[in-house]
């Protein structure tokens, strides 16, 4: 059956084509990823963590914020004095550690996704515009980026949290205010390189306006580099959030965050090692999976980023 050549269909055709290509590319990508065992493992674990976070209210055995002081400091179930009711034991307030770890995944994942997403969007937008138009805007933003790069990442984040105060939104602000720089540089460099290609010239000759060229022609071609960079940065964002929460500058109690849980456990390290150790292990496994997946993605999409 032929598709009708109504005006609507004609207008939608390039987008339909794009969507089909996108779908096919994604399937190819997944197939390639499937061939790499480590990337597959990483991806699977990430999916598990996401499911864990999303389904937290349904799968967590207890309330993560309510604790019974009579049930405090119970070791994990596999230890001698353990209790199968509390698989990972309880903390100093009698709260179930497993439930807290499950809920903690929400914070870590949410921060990771949002921080990377916002940084990538801002950085790419600024980078594309700067790289394409150059001129005073480019100089201004590049100098500002250089200035921001004078601060080590954690110092900047800690300093910002010091001034802004703790909390989720401030944390995001602190992470994205410095995070956009890497994406900016990547996008800017890539756009500057793409600008000299033939298809861009062709688009100009045809009469496409500049914003359309940037959006429809160039951006899809640099998208994969940004995706890879974003995945690789997510791990460090999550670790930074955990570190800030550990210092008490990030997520505040009673919201369970893995970093602050490790901090809580420090005072009980000698007698109740599980309170500090297990949440940290969760961080390690999550970041490890993200990195495994990200590296697999990079090997397929953009080996150029290997020596960064």
């Amino acid at each position, binding site marked *: 059956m032929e598709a009708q050549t109504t005006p609507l269909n004609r207008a939608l055709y390039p987008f339909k084509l794009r969507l089909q290509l996108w779908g096919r590319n994604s399937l190819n990508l997944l197939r390639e990823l499937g061939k790499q065992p480590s990337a597959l493992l990483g991806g699977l674990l990430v999916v598990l963590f996401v499911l864990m976070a999303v389904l937290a209210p349904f799968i967590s055995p207890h309330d993560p914020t309510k604790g019974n002081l009579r049930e405090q400091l119970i070791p994990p179930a596999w230890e001698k004095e353990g209790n199968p009711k509390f698989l990972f034991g309880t903390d100093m307030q009698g709260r179930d550690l497993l439930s807290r770890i499950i809920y903690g995944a929400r914070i870590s994942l949410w921060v990771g996704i949002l921080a990377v997403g916002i940084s990538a969007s801002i950085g790419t937008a600024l980078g594309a515009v700067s790289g394409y138009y150059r001129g005073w805007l480019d100089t201004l933003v590049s100098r500002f980026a250089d*200035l921001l790069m004078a601060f080590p990442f954690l110092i900047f984040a800690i300093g910002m949290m010091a*001034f802004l105060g703790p909390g989720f939104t401030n944390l995001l602000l602190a992470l994205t205010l410095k995070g956009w720089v890497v994406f900016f540089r990547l996008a800017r460099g890539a756009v500057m390189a793409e600008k000299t290609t033939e298809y861009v010239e062709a688009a100009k000759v045809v009469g496409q306006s500049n914003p359309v060229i940037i959006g429809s022609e160039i951006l899809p071609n640099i998208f994969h580099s940004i995706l890879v960079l974003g995945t690789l940065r997510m791990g460090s964002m999550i670790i930074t959030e955990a570190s800030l929460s550990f210092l008490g500058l990030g997520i505040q109690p009673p919201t369970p965050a893995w970093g602050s849980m490790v901090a809580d456990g420090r005072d009980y390290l000698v007698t109740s090692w599980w309170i500090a150790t297990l949440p940290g292990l969760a961080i390690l496994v999550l970041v490890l999976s993200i990195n495994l997946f990200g590296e697999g993605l990079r090997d397929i999409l953009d080996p150029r980023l290997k020596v960064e």
Partner: protein
Amino acid sequence: MRAVKVLERLLATIPIMLGVAIVVFLFMRLTPGDPVDIMMGEAGYVSEGEIENLRREFNLDKPLHVQLYLFLAGVIRGDLGNSYTKHAPVSELIAERLPATLELALGALIFGLVVAMPIGIVSAVKQYSVVDRVSMAGAFLGISMPAFWLGIILMLLFSVRLQWLPVAGRIDYDASLQAVTGLHVLDSILTGNKAALISSLRHLALPSVSLGAAMAATVARILRSSMLEVLRQDYVTLARAKGLVEFLVVTKHALRNALIPTVTVVGLQVGVLLGGNMIVETVFGWPGLGRLVVQAIFSRDFPLVQGAVMVYAFTFVMANLIVDVLYTYLNPKITL
């Protein structure tokens, strides 16, 4: 000629530092809350006169641009203001704690490089061997691990369970050490104090490893990947064909070029060391600048936080300058 270029680069860091100072100042002034209210927070009833005095003392009664000018003028003189809570000049407080932080950072840097360099080189030369696979797996773990957790695990294992190493602090209380540089390890060597040397090394061990592990992992990975690329080059094959000993081929020819991207990464990692410093010092109770800053943050002591952030940024900029200079030695094609 090179000295002139270095001087030029040094002068070029001044606008950057100026920018840093302005950014830090703006953030402090633009945050919600009156600094005087913050200072007076716990003090209960305070008279109007005292509040006014405080305002004048900290120049808070002047317009913003005047405050900025006074602040910058102070910074150039080396005056970073006075701490809100400790009633002492910020520069003094920082200088007091700086040697401890420097020692930790150096310890971590040395540990990181000593571990990463051989691993990176051997992994590349013997690609896909057991050494390579194990090292890269370990390095991968290293970059995925939060430093504070590693510190706690090491503390649990070596200090609590095995009791081989001390838990916190820089040196045993009873070790009488003459202070020359402020760096305990160096001082014990300089004054020939063997007991102090052992004590300070034992205290330095775990914090350095916790701080340096992530850096070691990153550097090992990048060194390996650069070495692999370099070893494929034609000039390496030529060197081998000339009959040059493999060791010399690797070190004299390949390594020198592989170090180029590696050194850049090390420069960036110094920033990670400076930041992670705060965390490791908190974990191990290390009496350095990092711990001071964390305490200052909680006591809302803005001048102290501000001064410390600037010191860190300055150190980072200097470290990258050193990296750039090193770069020109490694790659003669690049001039400063």
